[in-house]
């Protein structure tokens, strides 16, 4: 593992610790910090039920999913040498949701089945693989974004079709539930369903770290430096798809964390794509957990969905990156 020279990782770890504690405190039931900590480690009656069974799972999910989104985003940006790359830009969350929706629609399995993440992963694999294939042939960033838009729209249309054709109102409710993206009412079962996939995805992506560094100088140079570019591409596409699919399967469609997180840490990591990976993952975890806390704090009748929140903040950020780097982006092959 590459070691950054700055104290960035410890700082992010402290931030994540503070946010995690905050996440255990925020909710309809008023619980103070000392009680929350006690409730976590010993049986404190109702407080323990709230902290351990409601707030802890959603905290874990936000951390895991934020981590894998940040990591995937940084890896895809490194792979395509393009600061606009992200699973969300490639339509992967929509494609994952479509995969999950097909499974729910068939009515064969419940929402806690292994079939759900597997279908979601296949959807993500298809969309990311397709866009990387198109972009990998020297296409410009415009083609990259358009390809992602097309794939995302197609998946969205498929999902809409499933909703409109569904004879089963229960299935429709479940489908809509996937599309919103939230950590509300998630249990330890959801955590256990996603965790192995997130772990696997992290291992795949982290293996690609040192090759990404050589890829800063283009595929040709990376090849000449002994990097197996095809294997690198496979590792990252598979990692990003598995991470996205597993995340969508348990939390629905949450976008743009992977786009934003690497940008936040890059100036502090010296822009080396290998050294950006872990800090981007940690920043993603902190971002999504902060987003989930904010979703709970925003006063409204029903809880604001965190997926809606990340899109509301992420899309303007995406536009800002485009505006700031317009000239070079138009000329850079993806």
């Amino acid at each position, binding site marked *: 593992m*590459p*070691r950054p*020279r700055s104290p960035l990782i410890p700082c992010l770890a402290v931030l994540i610790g503070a946010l995690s504690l905050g996440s255990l405190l925020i909710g309809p039931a008023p619980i103070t910090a000392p009680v929350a900590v006690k409730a976590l480690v010993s049986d404190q009656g109702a407080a323990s039920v709230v902290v351990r069974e409601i707030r802890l799972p959603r905290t874990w999910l936000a951390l895991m999913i934020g981590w894998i989104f940040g990591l995937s985003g940084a890896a895809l940006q490194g792979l395509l*040498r*393009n600061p606009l790359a992200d699973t969300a830009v490639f339509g992967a969350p929509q494609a994952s949701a479509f995969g999950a929706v097909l499974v729910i629609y068939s009515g064969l399995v419940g929402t806690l089945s292994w079939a759900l993440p597997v279908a979601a992963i296949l959807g993500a694999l298809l969309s990311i693989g397709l866009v990387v294939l198109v972009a990998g042939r020297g296409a410009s960033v415009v083609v990259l974004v358009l390809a992602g838009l097309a794939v995302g729209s197609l998946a969205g249309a498929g999902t809409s079709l499933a909703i409109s054709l569904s004879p089963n109102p229960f299935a429709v409710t479940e489908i809509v539930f996937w599309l919103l993206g939230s950590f509300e009412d998630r249990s330890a079962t959801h955590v256990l369903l996603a965790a192995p996939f997130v772990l696997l995805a992290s291992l795949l992506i982290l293996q690609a770290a*040192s090759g990404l*560094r*050589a*890829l*800063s*100088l*283009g595929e*040709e*140079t990376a*090849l*000449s*430096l*002994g*990097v*197996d570019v095809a294997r690198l591409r496979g590792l990252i596409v598979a990692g990003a798809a598995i991470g996205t699919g597993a995340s969508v399967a348990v939390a629905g469609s949450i976008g743009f964390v992977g786009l934003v997180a690497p940008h936040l840490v*890059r100036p502090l990591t*010296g*822009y*080396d*794509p290998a*050294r950006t990976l872990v800090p981007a993952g940690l920043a993603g975890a902190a971002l999504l957990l902060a987003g989930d806390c904010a979703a709970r704090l925003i006063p409204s009748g029903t809880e604001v969905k965190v997926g809606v929140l990340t899109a509301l903040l992420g899309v303007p950020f995406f536009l800002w990156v485009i505006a700031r780097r317009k000239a070079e982006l138009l000329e*850079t092959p993806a």
Partner: protein
Amino acid sequence: MTLVEARSLSVDLGARRVLDRVSLALEPGRLTAVVGPNGAGKTSLLRALAGLLSPAGGEAVLNGAPVDRMRPAERARAIAYLPQGGGIAWPLPVAEVVALGRLPHGERPGALPEAGRQAVAAALAAVGLQGFENRPATALSGGERTRVLLARALATQAPVLLADEPVAALDPRHQLVVLGALKDRAREGATVAAILHDLTLAARFADTILLLRQGQIEALGPPEAVLTEARIAVSFGVRAEVLRQAGRPVVVALSPLSGT
């Protein structure tokens, strides 16, 4: 002694044969300039010799072993390759870009051992970029960036260096600096080949000129033997006058020939 050979080497790009049964040997200690009109197969030849593409026929050989069957890290330590017009994706500090040349040795930028640091410093000095170590590579001029990328290739300290148009975007002064650095590398014992379009520069710096045309070797030999007015007319479709300066050919292209 590192000998690079092409043995009846053919390369296809799609359905088109761009290199057709080329056989040659590049010798250590010599700078070979690869020249020829656009589409003659120069880049394909260099890429095949560097082991970056699989030949359609024949083989590229390094010290008797086919390069496309070498282990990637071993091949990368033996052959440094500088692609044409390579970019730098992120605003990495110059020293880190050059340090990427140490990856085949298992050395990471930011944690270079003494030998790696010396190689990076020597490479930066060779292209005249001392003092640029901490500058972001993307904030440099085109010419400076080209030299950073050459320094990256030099830092590998590979016994073979293959460069695709290393002076294409450079002003006259930096063309001389870069070709001087390549020549020095050859004088140190390396096998160096560079694709060049400026025939006068090629004649001035190269020990050997390889003239390619339509995927085949048109001529291979010392500059004064290869660069004749008749051959330039046939290969490039240009009426040219070849003058002499200090015994080396100076090529002045006069007009395009009709019918080519």
